[in-house]
């Protein structure tokens, strides 16, 4: 096996990065570039596809093949890229407006088809590029330029949408925790099928501090539950809090109180097809619960682009028609060769199709 020995720098383009100073996107980009370098896949085989929005400027800042497309359509365009050439490693960079509002249809169908690509969903709960309007992930009551009296609609929870679309991989990370984001992205990159990583991202200009309660490093251990495959769901500064199921619902308990021991704490099984529990983990919100971070669901299912290749191979093994000439002459044909029939005039004769 070739060892490419790439570093994150090998994935940076010469273009000047123009996100606002302090934007969460910088950290996410560093994590993505580091992840790509570690994947040990040839640089030429990466394609980064985006739609429209601040985060969608991403491809210009990468040195890989990249396509900055139109609003909401990155998922559909990337689906075409990957189906046309499954050998490519395709990444989709998108935001909450791009993929959950104008591109909502493509988003759910991408996930449903389980095309083998990696989507990074930058969730800043606001439209930044258009300067501060509410998005489909803005909380009810959010005051913005288009909701001066507060929104009157509930928001999407991206993970719910992914699992509701029969998603096979969903993970969550926070922009200010680069190391963890990188771990999650590495898992996503390994996954066979569509992986969606929601990164809670701060918009310093139009939604400053929107995730602060969750992301504040001072309270990280108390407010974030870092899920690990096969490990008990334990959190807290003293690693003394955990989750149990009580009457079918998640409940936070303290180890050592009321006879609760470590053995009573739920063990995280992202590879089990346990939608109910996984959705419950996705739904956990402050202050009652910590917010779930890491890979919440990672299950196996048929992968669209591989199935497409396989189907063509299967049909071709038994095919009777192997080329266009054979197709043209297949089925109901008849030959005209009578005495009063003349030589054919070919369509492309005497024309300048050079």
């Amino acid at each position, binding site marked *: 096996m070739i060892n490419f020995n790439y570093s994150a720098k090998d994935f940076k383009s010469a273009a000047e990065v123009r996100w606002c100073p302090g934007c969460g996107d910088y950290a996410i980009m560093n994590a993505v570039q580091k992840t790509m370098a570690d994947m040990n896949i040839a640089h030429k085989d990466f394609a980064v596809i985006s739609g429209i929005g601040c985060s969608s400027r991403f491809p*210009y800042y990468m040195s890989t093949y*990249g396509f900055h497309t139109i609003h909401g359509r990155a998922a559909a*365009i990337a689906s075409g890229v*990957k189906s046309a050439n499954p*050998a490519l490693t395709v990444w989709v960079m998108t935001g909450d407006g791009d993929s959950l509002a104008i591109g909502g249809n493509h988003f759910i169908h991408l996930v449903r088809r389980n095309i083998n690509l990696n989507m990074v969903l930058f969730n800043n709960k606001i439209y930044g590029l258009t300067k501060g309007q509410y998005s489909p992930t803005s909380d009810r009551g959010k005051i913005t330029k288009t909701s001066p009296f507060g929104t009157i609609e509930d928001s999407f929870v991206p993970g719910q949408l992914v699992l509701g679309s029969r998603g096979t991989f969903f993970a969550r990370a926070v922009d200010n925790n680069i190391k963890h984001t990188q771990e999650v992205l590495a898992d996503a990159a390994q996954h066979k099928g569509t992986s969606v990583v929601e990164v809670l991202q701060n918009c310093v200009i139009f939604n400053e501090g929107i995730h602060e309660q969750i992301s504040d490093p001072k309270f990280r251990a108390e407010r974030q539950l870092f899920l690990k495959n096969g490990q008990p769901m334990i959190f807290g500064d003293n690693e003394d809090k955990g989750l149990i199921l009580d009457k079918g619902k998640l409940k936070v308990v303290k180890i050592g109180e009321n006879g609760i021991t470590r053995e009573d704490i739920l063990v995280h099984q992202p590879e089990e097809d346990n939608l109910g529990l996984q959705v419950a983990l996705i739904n956990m919100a402050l202050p009652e619960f910590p917010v779930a971070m890491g890979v919440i669901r990672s299950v196996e299912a048929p992968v669209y682009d591989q199935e497409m290749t396989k189907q063509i191979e299967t049909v071709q093994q038994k*095919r009777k028609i192997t080329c266009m000439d054979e197709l043209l002459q297949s089925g*109901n044909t008849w030959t005209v060769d009578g005495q009063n029939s003349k030589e054919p005039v*070919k369509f*492309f004769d005497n024309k300048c199709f050079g």
Partner: protein
Amino acid sequence: MKDAKVIELEEVAIRFSGDSGDGMQLTGTLFSDTSALFGNDISTFPDYPSEIRAPQGTVGGVSGFQVQFGKKKITTPGDLAHVLVAMNPAALKANAAFLNPAASIIFDVDSFSEKNLEKAQYKTKDPFTELKLNDYSLIPVPITSMTKESLIDLELDNKSILRCKNMFALGLICWMFDRPLDYIERFIQSKFGKKSPLIAEANLTVLHTGYNYGMNLQHMTPQYIVHPAPIEKGIYRNINGNNATAWGFIAAAEKAGLELFIGSYPITPATDVLQALAERKDLGVKSFQAEDEIAGICTTIGAAFAGDLAVTSTSGPGFALKSEALGLSVMAELPIVVVNVQRGGPSTGLPTKTEQSDLLQTLYGRNGESPVVVLAASTPSDCFYYAFLSAKIALERMVPVVLLTDGFLGNGSEPWRVPSMDELPSITPRKAKNPETYLPYNRDPETLAREWAIPGMEGFEHRIGGLEKNNAGGVNQDPDNHQRNSEIREAKVLKVADMIPELEVEGNPEGDLLVIGWGGTFGHMISSVKAMQDAGKSVSLAHFNYIKPLPSNTAEVLARFKKIVVCELNMGQFASYLRDKLPQFTYHQVNKMKGLPFSVHELVENFDKLLEA
């Protein structure tokens, strides 16, 4: 035999007509195929309602299939039918206006009940007098009862029995036109033989009953003889426009050495293009049924970025949804082909009827200055060649191409001498060669086409997008840069004129009247112009397949005629385009917005008026 009335004809048009569930499309298709195999040239026109099963017995639910066949070149399905098969009173009513004065009307007398007359909203109990059809050759045939009678020994439910009625009509018509039944028999066997031998047997029985009925009662049924047509040597098949389009793309992919990708969404009347390609996994076609029209073109753009010959198919409303993404392919300069099988509009409009009203949408229906190459096929079979050419132009000039066909071409069929792949020109995609000097928007100085570097090619990594760009693909919103790029994108499309043929004239290159048509009206245009020429009139035809760019000699051709008339199935879109591009000429217009093709008769009438004026 001596009672039999035998009529020899040069060409005959038959219209099969019944409820949309009566199997008229199949009946018509089987008869057309049989006639083509017999050696006649044919042209067909399916005309069906947009509801799959509209209310039974109503005029709105009538489904028709017209075929014209003859011993010479057939260019249209015929204005008026010589023979009408009417399975019920509604079918008679819907078609009364489309009959030759001497036509024979075969009707299922069993279905002419009071109830059915009411459903078809007749005002009287005598439909023939009411429709002024008494002078026609009326042939009442008890189709329903004879069908039931012939199947009495088979253990079949009533519904299945009634489904065989169309085979009775088909058998009868085959007798009238002296067609052998073997092709139809083989079809029935292969369709039902294995799955339900009983249904196969029933259909075969009824087919023969109909045929024998004609033979036995020939004193009342005229028999027609239409001799085989003398045509060009070769291997022939019947093909409809949508299949021809699909196959043209497969041929282009093979020529170009590329894999073929279609991303598409079902829409009448274009769905068959997607279906025909989905069927061809044996030739490696990747078909992607997308979640909507937008995803149809977006997956196509993605596949083009990834290096496939990428196409998408749609009809008017879907084309409207694709417009933003089509603009992306203009900006990114990716080679895609969009097929628009036009139908009646606006909005949902007339989904199953034909029209040419998307021309201006195709030329101009996008934000910004967004030029694309526009081609239009003109017969069902030449859809193959124009699909092939669309792909060739897209790949060699790195430009999106829109191919316009329409419902009439897409569903209509004709015998086609199949070419061999050797007859088709080469296609050389502009794959990038030198990574040292490569920039995505470096251009060939002659054609202005950029080079195509696809992900996976080492050393060519680059970024493109929908923002205005510099040669490296990076964002550049400099005023002069945008001006220059806008001019280049337009010039690149216009330069395609150097790879398309000059405009040809059917008839004398100069004269009193030049008739101009484009796209799917060709059959009717050429028939009417030939009729004028036969009558000694100075009329010629210039039929356009290349809309943007126009053939380079267009102005020269137009200048040689005293009058010019542009005929199209819209309110004058091509005429206004010509007025814009070649304002030095005066354009008369013939336009029709009925969801139907032109009739030769109405065209001739209009041309006569223009010549007299």
